[in-house]
């Protein structure tokens, strides 16, 4: 690191001899910290230049392509021609409803429902009370682009947003076992993402339980009523429960979803809700470990230098007295 910083390896122009002398000459006992003052003007200049470059950098605030936008923000709840998820299938939605209405709804769903618009209230009921979130940064222009996209995709025989179709076969005990393996990570997800346990917890995991970043999945089966859960996970686990957290999980494999839903169903049927002591246990383990390491440090450096002169004086002063 040192070498990397020094750029010029050895300044030959000033002989090493002299440099130290010069250091000595310039030693100033006045307590000042002008280091920052000297660097600051140049630093500010550079910072300003950097800020300029960054704000102008077109890629940072780049408008996301509408399709990508749809995939990221809409596809978790809506398909185009793939049937209902949490939200309705959007195929031919522009034929079902007036375009201006749709645009308003996209921009602020809550307002429409609150206003008592009958169509909006109906949609809300169909989604079992799940409210469509308003997307951050949504504009009328963007909504129009989205509707254009939906229209175009509806016209296609097979939309790219049709979503995955998954089986409706009954669950077997093997499915449940596989679900456990997938949840805890014993079996890696095909998409390579972190296992469910990273962010979610269900009862019966033992140890320190599951993660807390995502919602507790104990009651997910009841909440989402089976099949919907499957469909949700089919596209992307994110927004699956409308917990507005995003993660970069790519879609799950249909077979994996089958197994996981089997697990959730099993949990819903048999699982007892256990008191959550995992956080406490985890913290106590950490604290205990830290104390242990401190004791270890003390042992490793038990012969460290403490004090010589004071001990010498204290040990011998008494001896010297009559």
């Amino acid at each position, binding site marked *: 690191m040192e070498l990397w*910083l020094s750029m010029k390896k050895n300044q030959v122009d000033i002989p090493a001899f002299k440099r130290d002398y010069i250091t000595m000459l310039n030693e100033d006992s006045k307590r000042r910290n002008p280091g920052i003052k000297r660097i600051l003007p140049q630093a500010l200049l550079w910072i300003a230049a950097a800020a300029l470059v*960054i704000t102008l950098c077109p890629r940072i605030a780049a408008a996301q392509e509408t399709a990508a936008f749809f995939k990221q923000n809409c596809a978790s709840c809506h398909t185009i021609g793939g049937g209902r998820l949490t939200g309705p299938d959007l195929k031919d939605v522009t034929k079902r409803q007036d375009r201006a209405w749709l645009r308003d709804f996209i921009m602020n769903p809550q307002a429409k429902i609150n206003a008592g618009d009958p169509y909006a209230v109906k949609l809300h009921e169909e989604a079992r009370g799940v409210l469509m979130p308003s997307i951050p*940064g949504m504009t009328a222009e963007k909504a129009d682009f989205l509707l254009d996209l939906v229209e175009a995709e509806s016209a296609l025989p097979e939309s790219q947003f049709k979503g995955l179709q998954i089986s409706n076969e009954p669950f077997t005990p093997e499915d449940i076992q596989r679900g456990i393996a997938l949840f805890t990570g014993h079996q890696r997800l095909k998409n390579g993402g972190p296992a469910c346990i990273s962010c979610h917890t269900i009862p019966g995991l033992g140890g*320190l339980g599951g993660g807390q970043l995502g919602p507790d999945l104990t009651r997910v089966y009841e909440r989402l009523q089976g099949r919907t859960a499957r469909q949700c996970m089919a596209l992307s686990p994110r927004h699956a429960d409308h917990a507005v*957290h995003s993660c970069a999980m790519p879609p799950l494999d249909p077979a994996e979803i089958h197994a996981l839903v089997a697990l959730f169903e099993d949990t819903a049927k048999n699982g007892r809700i256990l008191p959550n002591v995992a956080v406490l246990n*985890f913290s106590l383990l950490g604290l205990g470990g830290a104390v242990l390491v401190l004791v270890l*440090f003390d042992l490793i450096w038990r012969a460290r230098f403490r004090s010589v002169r004071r001990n010498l004086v204290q040990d011998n002063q008494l001896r010297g007295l009559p």
Partner: protein
Amino acid sequence: MSNYHDLLLFAVLPYLSVFVLLIVSIQRYRAQTFSFSSLSSQFLENKMHFWALVPFHYGILTVIAGHFVAFCVPRSILAWNSVPVRLYILEVSALIAGLLTLLGLIHMIARRATVSKIRTVTSKVDWVLFALLVVQIVTGILVAVLYPWGSSWYAATMTPYLWSLLQFNPDITYVSALPLMVKLHIVNAFIVVGLFPFTRLVHILVVPNPYLWRRTQVVRWYGEARRAG
């Protein structure tokens, strides 16, 4: 509105910080080499020093190494975490390191505040740095405790986010929806990076790695170099 803030904090601030770090560090090294020092105060007080500096440095080095490894090889971390017991071992170890850092930092602050000799060599910048570090470490520990298991979800959020930063195509969607505590941890980290060259942290840039392979004795010649060891 919040989107705008997120953009500022997670797409502009990181570049600004790293930029400041690079430019000011280099400039300071060139113009103020003398000021590059760990400014050790062990000489003035050496008992609390042990309980402050040793846990702090070992703790924070472990934690930083953990963040770095998780960034570089997220898949290996996930593979390790695939058995819950191993996940728990990793997480508890990380928490221990974090707590050691915090304990060390508390000692450091107590030492600077109470020992009068040490107070005379403590600058205002040191206190600013302490405040930032406290925020950083406390939020880190809270994230570990309140939002387990970070070693796994890091791979799905932070790793792609940091990569997007590295590729000059920042994608803030990975982080914009994370809990506030995590966001605070990230933003504060960028602030620390940005203020780095204005603080005593610059001693990290001059860690003495050449020592491990240089010859034992050093001889300098005045005139033309006659290297003979």
